[in-house]
């Protein structure tokens, strides 16, 4: 029986890892769809590359910093260059567990790169993917999941509203502040321009892929299939996503007079991000409320960042940051006595303000740490690398050509190029 469970749990973990890695596909579609054609190939392709980078760095040092044995409150210190060795006493394959954790680190990095979109140099991606995966993410993950000081403190973050999403969003905020807004985003008189993404169908499909992948993210975070509890986690996850989409539709219709597609898509994602921390600790009705509030929150968060003149091309700050904060705090309100495997029940379940306080401190410390360290890293990079951003000319012609030399949509751009080629040939012929 024990062997069967070992196998089943391992299958579940690898399946979870596969689903979470598939979320990278969701991000590829989401990010490419939300940005312009001239950057599409770059945005899509860099995600594959940075996930590869995250994988190697996680194997080399990330995993060890998070889960290493001889660790302390701040960081773990063993299992570097992980060999695939089975840990004693674990009722699932450690390699499967490793892969699952690696997939999470990859997601956090991709979220962080949301703040780079449409203007960062490729080299900035390369360097930051190493430093974020080696330093920023592992330290926070260790604090909460690796037995660090916040775990001891009783912070509830089941699948990573804080660890994965808020950390990624905080890095994204640091990046977008240092990179400054895209050309043409803000007018001199202070008004904001809409820089439309080139394909809303991609964006919607990306959201759906993420939604499905999220079952691996949240339900997979049970690690084990023993009592079928993962089914309940999956149910809560789905309810929150649905409520988020509906809330976003309603709020945009009420405020703008039209139900805005971008807001609806952000709402579903915000619901997912928010429920990530609490999916195993709250009842189904609370999952609906958490998702619904996230859907409204994300709408106002987008407005706020516009007002602050912070350019957030794919809404990473609102979807992963604002909703991540709300999701983590929501534990402090809705966690039940029966379900709270870590920490205490929330405010509405007789736990008073204790857990809410724990959650709030966790959010503040993690958010701040991720932001400050990411900012410091990027600041130094900016100095050393002579800027993080492509030149104005490169930004205007698009990163597909400036960074990679080929277009994501050759047909859409090549004609003109070819004409220029022909012109050049003609001129050289005349000159001869």
């Amino acid at each position, binding site marked *: 029986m024990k062997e069967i469970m070992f196998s089943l749990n391992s299958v579940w973990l690898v399946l979870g890892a596969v689903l979470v890695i598939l979320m990278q596909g969701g991000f590829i579609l989401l990010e490419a769809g939300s940005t312009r054609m001239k950057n599409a190939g770059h945005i899509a392709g860099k995600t594959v590359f940075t996930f590869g980078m995250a994988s190697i760095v996680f194997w080399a040092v990330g995993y060890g910093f998070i889960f290493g044995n001889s660790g302390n409150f701040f960081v773990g210190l063993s299992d570097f260059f992980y060999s695939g060795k089975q840990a004693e006493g674990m009722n699932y394959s450690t390699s499967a567990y490793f892969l699952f954790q690696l997939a999470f680190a990859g997601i956090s990095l991709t979220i962080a790169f949301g703040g780079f979109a449409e203007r960062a140099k490729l080299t900035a991606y390369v360097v930051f993917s190493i430093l974020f995966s080696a330093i920023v993410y592992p330290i926070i993950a260790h604090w909460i999941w690796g037995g660090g000081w916040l775990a001891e403190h009783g912070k509830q973050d089941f699948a990573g509203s804080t660890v994965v999403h808020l950390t990624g969003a905080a890095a994204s905020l640091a990046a977008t502040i240092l990179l400054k807004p895209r050309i043409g985003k803000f007018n001199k008189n202070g008004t904001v321009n809409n820089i439309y993404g080139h394909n809303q169908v991609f964006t919607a499909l990306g959201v759906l892929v993420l939604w499905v992948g999220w079952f691996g993210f949240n339900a997979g975070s049970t690690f084990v299939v023993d009592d079928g509890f993962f089914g309940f986690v999956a149910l809560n996850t789905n309810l929150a996503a649905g409520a988020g989409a509906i809330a976003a539709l309603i709020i945009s219709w009420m405020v*703008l007079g039209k139900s805005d597609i971008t807001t609806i898509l952000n709402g579903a994602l915000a619901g997912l991000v928010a429920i990530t921390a609490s999916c195993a600790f709250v009842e189904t009705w609370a999952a609906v409320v958490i998702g619904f509030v996230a859907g409204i929150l994300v709408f106002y968060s987008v407005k706020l960042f516009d007002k602050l003149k912070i350019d957030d091309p794919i809404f990473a700050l609102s979807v992963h940051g604002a909703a991540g904060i709300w999701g983590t705090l929501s534990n402090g309100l809705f966690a039940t006595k029966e379900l709270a495997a870590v920490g205490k029940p929330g405010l509405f379940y007789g736990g008073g303000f204790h857990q809410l306080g724990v959650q709030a401190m966790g959010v503040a410390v993690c958010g701040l740490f991720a932001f400050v360290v990411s900012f410091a890293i990027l600041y130094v990079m900016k100095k050393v690398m002579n800027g993080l951003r492509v030149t104005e000319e490169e930004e205007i012609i698009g990163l597909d050509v400036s960074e990679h030399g080929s277009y994501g949509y050759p047909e859409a751009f090549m004609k003109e190029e070819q004409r220029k080629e022909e012109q050049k040939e003609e001129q050289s012929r005349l000159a001869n």
Partner: protein
Amino acid sequence: MSMVINSYDSLKNWRDSEIDKHLTDSAELNHFHDTVMKNVYEIALERMKVQCGEPPCLFSWFLMGSAGRFEQAIISDQDHGLIYEQSDEKSNEYFQKLGKEITSGLYAVGYPYCDGHVMSSNPVWCKSKREWEAQMTKWLKEESFESIRFLLIFYDARVLVGEEKYVSELKQKIHDYIETKPYFMERLLENTIHVKKAVGVFQQFLTETHGAHTGSIDLKHSGFLPFVNCIRLFALKEKAASSTTLSRIDELSNLPAYTAELDVYRADFEKLLSYRLKQHQKSTEDYDDVHYLDIKELDKAEKKELKNLFKNGKKLQEYTKSIIKGKMQ
């Protein structure tokens, strides 16, 4: 005009220096626009005379769009056309050339080109009487979205120079067609009923959320259009001869069925015109600016009044629907 103006440049200078004196009310401003455009026409004709001689036949030059309706803002794009008596090659050539001359003249004096190319330089809007009649028949029979658009645009035609009857005869064709095919009114209704919402469920203004006009209301699409379109539909239904929104209202008010209803809407429309006029005193840098009203600059009473105007626009639309669909039953 007391002085002699014989070039577009000097006309433009005169227009720019004089226009501020004519912002007291909308009718005054539109008389001024008429004067300027007539002058453009005269300069254009003089130039034609030098190049190609006298016009080979009678003709009429007419305005459409907001100019046709006598409700231009301080800056309005051009909408105009030509009808000429004879359909021979000489006339065709002459008036196509004149159309182009007038169009570039208007542009030089400060009237931007029409995005939809509703200008005398476009052969669609510059035809002999016989060709116009054929085109009108085609538009009526076609009943496509575009042809109905064209019909509605033409219906606001107001003759500025030349023979009145060329235009009125063509309008008569539209009236006759509606007489035989009453359902056609519904097609016209469908073409113009979409309006940009300006007031939300919380009675809040739905202002622009992005771009240079963030925080402003689109006065043209949310405010003017429901009034202009509905009154035009009534005019079509009742075969009114006027081409301006206010004179259409006056004419329709003589019919007992409309008297009470239109009284309110006349007052509303005049208020809309005065809001836009107020806008003129400030930003009039480009064509788009005149249509946007920054709600931050309105006081409480004005905001209330404006919301009321938008709501009445909506009511007028409902009223129009009931009148036009009622006819079908």
